[in-house]
């Protein structure tokens, strides 16, 4: 077992090892899709629950797999494997570097899912974050560098907040096990502070509103497979972090929960709104991710505020994450696929591309529908004693509408996709596999608690409820196309642009160096003056030595 786990986590480091020797470097690239296979095997074939202690590692490492982690491990392994396959066809330049960072990031991502103690969790999280930079800036264009810079700044901020949160939490819990944290935090007098740190720390990765700035910048510029894993898997790491550390199921954290729900609402709608205004398909997808993560944030907020719902919500969040990862992964990968020239084939492709998108919007019979339904069940109003409860239903409806609009926007942009690059069999296969996984999702989705499993009747009512928002959305889209309304241009990365401007203005030449120079001159002058004064005095003393004797003798006499 241990060997298997270690292999699963460490095999992604193979490109790093191979990089050490020139003779082995060509293997780096060829083995890229294979490095995540042990992890995939682990989640598919291995036991569903296990625990592994590695006392010699770090400050005493502890890894485990449980029901909460399983969907995350699954989505991570799946997405990375297929995207890796896709990447072997997609990436043309700097392959070795790509393989290196790919492996490192993957290692971090897998490891953090499995980590059960704070330190290894944080270690893998940091590894993923920093190695991810390599993926973001892979194209080495100035846009990539700009996105990378924003990514890095945000990531560092996040890491620091995270470190603070974890330190405080560990100090409170007096334990390094993640499992011990939630109780301790809930009981701690500094619970709010810790939670804020953790929310912010993971929020950067999870694309929490206001901390999402890097997402729409990074996704369009990163290579497509990298965008897929960024948006599909890595973004979920933040979510997982929240789930593992926040005091879920303990005492009610009403304020935090409410704030989170509000942020989630805002994100899910606002993200969609800004996303519609984007000009790049990947940027649209990025905002869609923000929007979707908003929904997950919302659920988390509910879980925090209403602890009794945690039991229901956690599996739902897991399911949602898995669904979103696969669907979004498929969408991202489709960006790099070249449309066949044949008209029919192109329409077929179109249809296939649209499915995951519509799934996101909750198209019946898709994973989206499955998830949305489960979510609705979990958030059902009866029994949810909470001020915001009545709004949730409407929100979900609005969310679905917004998502659909986004998807339409994406498809619209895809139509104009002038991608002329050859998409080789590897890409096709990778894309296809993700797509398939996404479509097959309802069949291997994790089991939900009995209380919120859905019946057919639920499905039907759900569909009914879905029809009209979808229609409205389609109508709006149609209108837009018909009157050739141009969407207002909102630069990707929205707030970042404002920030960058202000930073530029603030940067002026400091005057410190000037004053230092003046100071130096003064010192020199003083030195010169001292030298000039001392030497004649010395000569005087030399000449008047007898006089000095006289004066001294008198002085002594008088004393």
């Amino acid at each position: 077992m241990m060997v298997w786990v270690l292999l699963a986590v460490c095999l992604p480091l193979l490109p790093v090892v191979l990089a050490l020797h020139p003779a082995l470097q060509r293997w780096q690239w060829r083995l890229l899709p294979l490095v995540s296979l042990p992890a995939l095997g682990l989640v598919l074939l291995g036991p569903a629950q296990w625990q592994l202690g590695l006392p010699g590692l770090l400050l005493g490492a502890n890894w485990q797999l449980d029901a909460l982690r399983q969907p995350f491990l699954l989505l991570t392994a799946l997405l990375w494997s297929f995207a890796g396959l896709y990447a072997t066809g997609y990436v043309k330049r700097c392959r070795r570097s790509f393989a290196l960072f790919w492996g490192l990031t993957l290692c971090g991502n897998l490891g953090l899912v499995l980590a059960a103690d704070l330190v290894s969790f944080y270690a893998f999280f940091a590894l993923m974050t920093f190695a991810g930079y390599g993926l973001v800036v892979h194209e080495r264009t100035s846009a990539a560098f700009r996105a990378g810079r924003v990514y890095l700044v945000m990531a560092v901020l996040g890491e620091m907040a995270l470190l603070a949160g974890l330190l405080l939490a560990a100090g409170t819990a007096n334990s390094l096990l993640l499992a011990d944290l939630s109780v301790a935090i809930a009981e701690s007098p500094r619970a709010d502070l810790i939670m804020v740190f953790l929310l912010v720390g993971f929020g950067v990765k999870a694309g929490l509103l206001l901390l999402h700035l890097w997402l729409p910048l990074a996704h369009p510029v990163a290579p497509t497979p990298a965008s897929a894993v960024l948006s599909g898997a890595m973004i979920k790491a933040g979510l997982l972090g929240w789930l593992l550390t926040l005091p879920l199921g303990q005492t009610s954290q009403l304020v935090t929960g409410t704030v989170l729900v509000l942020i989630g609402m805002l994100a899910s709608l606002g993200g969609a709104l800004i996303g519609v205004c984007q000009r790049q398909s990947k940027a649209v997808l990025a905002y869609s991710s923000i929007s979707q993560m908003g929904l997950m944030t919302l659920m988390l907020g509910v879980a925090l505020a209403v602890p009794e719902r945690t039991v229901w919500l956690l599996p739902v969040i897991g399911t949602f994450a898995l669904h979103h990862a696969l669907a979004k992964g498929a969408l991202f990968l489709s960006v790099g696929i070249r449309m066949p020239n044949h008209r029919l084939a192109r329409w077929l492709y179109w249809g296939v591309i649209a499915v995951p998108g519509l799934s996101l919007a909750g198209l019946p019979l898709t994973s989206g529908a499955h998830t949305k339904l489960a979510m609705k069940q979990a958030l059902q109003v009866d029994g949810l004693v909470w001020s915001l409860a009545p709004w949730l239903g409407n929100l979900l409806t609005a969310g679905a509408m917004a998502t659909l609009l986004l998807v339409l926007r994406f498809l619209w942009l895809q139509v104009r996709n002038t991608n002329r690059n050859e998409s080789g069999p590897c890409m096709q296969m990778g894309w296809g596999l993700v797509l398939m996984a996404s479509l097959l999702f309802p069949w291997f989705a994790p089991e939900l608690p009995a209380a919120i499993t859905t019946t057919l009747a639920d499905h039907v009512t759900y569909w009914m409820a879905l029809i009209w928002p979808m229609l409205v959305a389609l109508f709006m889209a149609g209108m837009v196309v018909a009157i050739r309304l141009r969407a207002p241009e909102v630069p990707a990365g929205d707030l970042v642009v404002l920030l960058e401007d202000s930073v530029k203005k603030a940067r002026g030449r400091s005057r410190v160096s000037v004053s230092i120079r003046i100071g130096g001159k003064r010192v020199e002058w003083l030195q010169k003056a001292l030298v000039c004064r001392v030497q004649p005095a010395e000569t005087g003393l030399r000449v008047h030595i007898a006089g000095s004797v006289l004066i001294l003798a008198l002085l002594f006499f008088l004393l």
Partner: protein
Amino acid sequence: MRSPAARIGMLLLALMLTALLGRSVWQLSMLEPASDLPRQLQDKLAASGVEHPVTAVLLNFRSYDTLLEIAVLVIAAMAGISMARTRSLEDPELRTSDTLLRALLRWLVPLMLLLAGYLLWAGADRPGGAFQAGAMLAATGVLMRLTGLPLDFLRPGILLRIGLVLGFALFLLVGLASAIAGDVFLAYPREFVKGLILSIETLLTLSIGMILLALFVAAPVNDASEPEEGEK
């Protein structure tokens, strides 16, 4: 020290010092010294080998002082001759052919030598002694030099150097001999005191005379100049 104010200030200060010194002398003169050295001296004079107390102090009780004093003289002489011209002591300015002077000299020199001898001898029991005799010798030499006599034995050379240290060397040897004999340094054996002191005095006289004379005769400068260290 050019400004008159400073001069007057210094003068006042010097006056003050003088006054303080005088006051101190005055105050001290009121005191009776606790130890009575003259009486001790008187008690031990008999054992010193000479009758005159000053000579006894000089050459016996505090002979070490005297030994070093001669050393100081030798040093001065060395410093003097180290700057001497080596070729010849001929000084054309001093050459004279005044026969009257020569004749006078012929009388004076033996007389002065005799006087020197007397001073040396008298030192044992009355004022006199090696230094006075040596000074007399030197005066003789000066006189001879001024009349243009060459005095070639004063040319810096081994002879002169031997002459310079002769008295000192004997003094030293006596000191060493006494130490070797088992007593302390410079303690003359009781039985030879007088003879030893006399012979030391005699040689000292010669040396002192030579030293003083050498300073007069040989001190003129040479033209050789050595560059300062490191400034070649």
